[in-house]
């Protein structure tokens, strides 16, 4: 399963071998692949016969939508929690 990878050239890497992901166009290809797979998984959803006992599971695209919303909510909540929880690295040192 591919992950989105962003790569930038750094001065330190001048003389180095160029990797496939060093090219932004290739990173975009990975991202588009994720979009395409998600689209495909959503399109075939009505064809899948789900067996679970809960009604909500049988809604169109439930798992995909839930996964997306859950992750966005998770990240944004955690980000806000930083205001409350984040301290400098040496907080516990005296």
């Amino acid at each position, binding site marked *: 399963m591919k992950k989105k990878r962003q790569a930038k050239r750094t001065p330190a*890497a001048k003389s180095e071998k160029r990797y496939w992901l060093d090219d932004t166009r290739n990173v975009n290809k990975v991202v588009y692949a994720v979009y395409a797979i998600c689209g495909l998984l959503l399109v075939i959803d009505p064809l899948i016969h789900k067996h679970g006992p809960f009604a909500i599971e049988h809604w169109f695209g439930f798992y995909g939508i839930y996964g*997306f919303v859950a992750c966005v909510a998770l990240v944004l909540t955690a980000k806000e929690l930083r205001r409350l929880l984040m301290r400098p690295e040496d907080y516990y040192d005296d």
Partner: protein
Amino acid sequence: MTDVSPGLLVVVGALLVPMLRGWARPIYMLALPVVAFLHLVALPYGAFGGIEFLGLNLVTLRVDRLSSIFGYIFLIATFVSVIYSLHVRDVVQQTASLIYAGSAVGAVFAGDLVTLFVYWEGTAIASVALIWARRTEASYHAGMRYLIIQVLSGLLLFFGVLLNYRVSGSISFNALGLETAAGILIFLAFGIKCAFPLVHNWLQDAYPEATVTGTVWLSAFTTKLAVYSLARGYAGTEILVPIGAAMTAFPIFYAVIENDLRRVLAYSLNNQLGFMVVGIGIGTELALNGTAAHAFSHILYKALLFMSMGAVLHRVGTVKGSELGGLYKSMPWTTAFCIIGAASISAFPLFSGFISKSLIISAAMKEGYYWTWVVLLFASAGVFHHSGIKIPYFAFFAHDSGKRCQEAPLNMLVAMAIAAALCVGLGVMPGLLYAHLPFAVDYHPYSLDHVVTQLQLLMFSALAFTVLMRTGLYPPELKSVNLDFDWTYRRLGKSALQSLASFGRWIGSGSTTTITRTLTAFVSRLYRHHGPKGILARTWPTGSMAFWTTFLLGAYLILYYL
């Protein structure tokens, strides 16, 4: 030979490690878990190793399907961890790690609570050496906090066992339940070691402070021993379902904003334990099979992830997300193994997490735990987010940090390769694991709807990550610590003590007049109470004396530990 626990074999065997020199030592250390494993395979089911001790009949070796599956995986983890640690020359770590692993195996095969207690303390004391062996000030303090909490768990277990023996006259380790005070004490002891919410912080505090290899050892045994013990004593205890669900959910918020990638893994370890605890709480055959299976695959992929981050720490000297990135260029093999671990913990089809976590989620659905199911799905999406994507992304990809290093040492690569092969092997051939679960299995994880819905959940989580990254909404990795429950004892408790001390100093510097006045008042009060007609001059029942003695002793104990 049937009377010797495989755990005892490893513990006693570990004591010989310091006496060996040169090549003999690593070969011996590799052979030890193999011999113990073969011994376990040869053991029939039953209770062996009876010892008479202080009038108690101890059963030091109980072999059944539940203890065997945990014994197998503990010994496999020991073998893999030995390989990963082959470059370590520190004899303290070498010995302590094997005693620790052996104690965990011994505890799993304990047929009575006294034997369990002995090994339980063995795991606590041996494991702290792996934290202190880092030899930094932070690791010293973290190790001390870890040890205090582990010993507290042991104390609760001790009093629970004692009380249980007084009330029921039994020390057998079977279903305990929460109906008795003893049952509650033992439950709390297990709960601390299992990192229940609010008593979880020793895990995230101590594990990332241990040595490169130490964290790999630690990740396998302590908490899974607690899972085993809960499964043995508290299967079907309803309260474990909400406790487990909370454990799956809240650590992932911390995992998202944590910068130390080994600490991220410690939070996700906590989250994975939650799934197992839910399985124990549901308590059906399917659910308990799920807990055992998930513990089995979890130990492998979690060790694999800790090994990959350990390799990064070993080569780069840091595992802070804010300082890493682009390491796939220097460490391609480590990157590949890390991604396999990440796919396994995220429960991608064809990887081990998929075939084990499904059992627990299916059991929750089957028994109609609607809200638990909703939380477990959230946690499943979340675990992919922080362990599946965040760990490999920020360490090996993201923006190139410009850091260039060597690939991990050969022994580390071999250990990671074995763990990765097992992760994929279990995912592709679930029958191998299912055949050894506590109960007969009639479950097929690879149904079309299951595979597709799981892929939907995961790919849309990946989509969420992509969108948040591309829009710049994703919180960057920042040098920081995040407050968690350990704040109460690392800060609140400390400042309370400090203000107590300054209050004492203030008293000390009080003016002499105050002292004289207080003294005069004190003497007259003394006369009033202790004089010929004083209240304390009367005779008092011994009960109240016993009460005050207990109170003072208790107060002394608390002050002593502080």
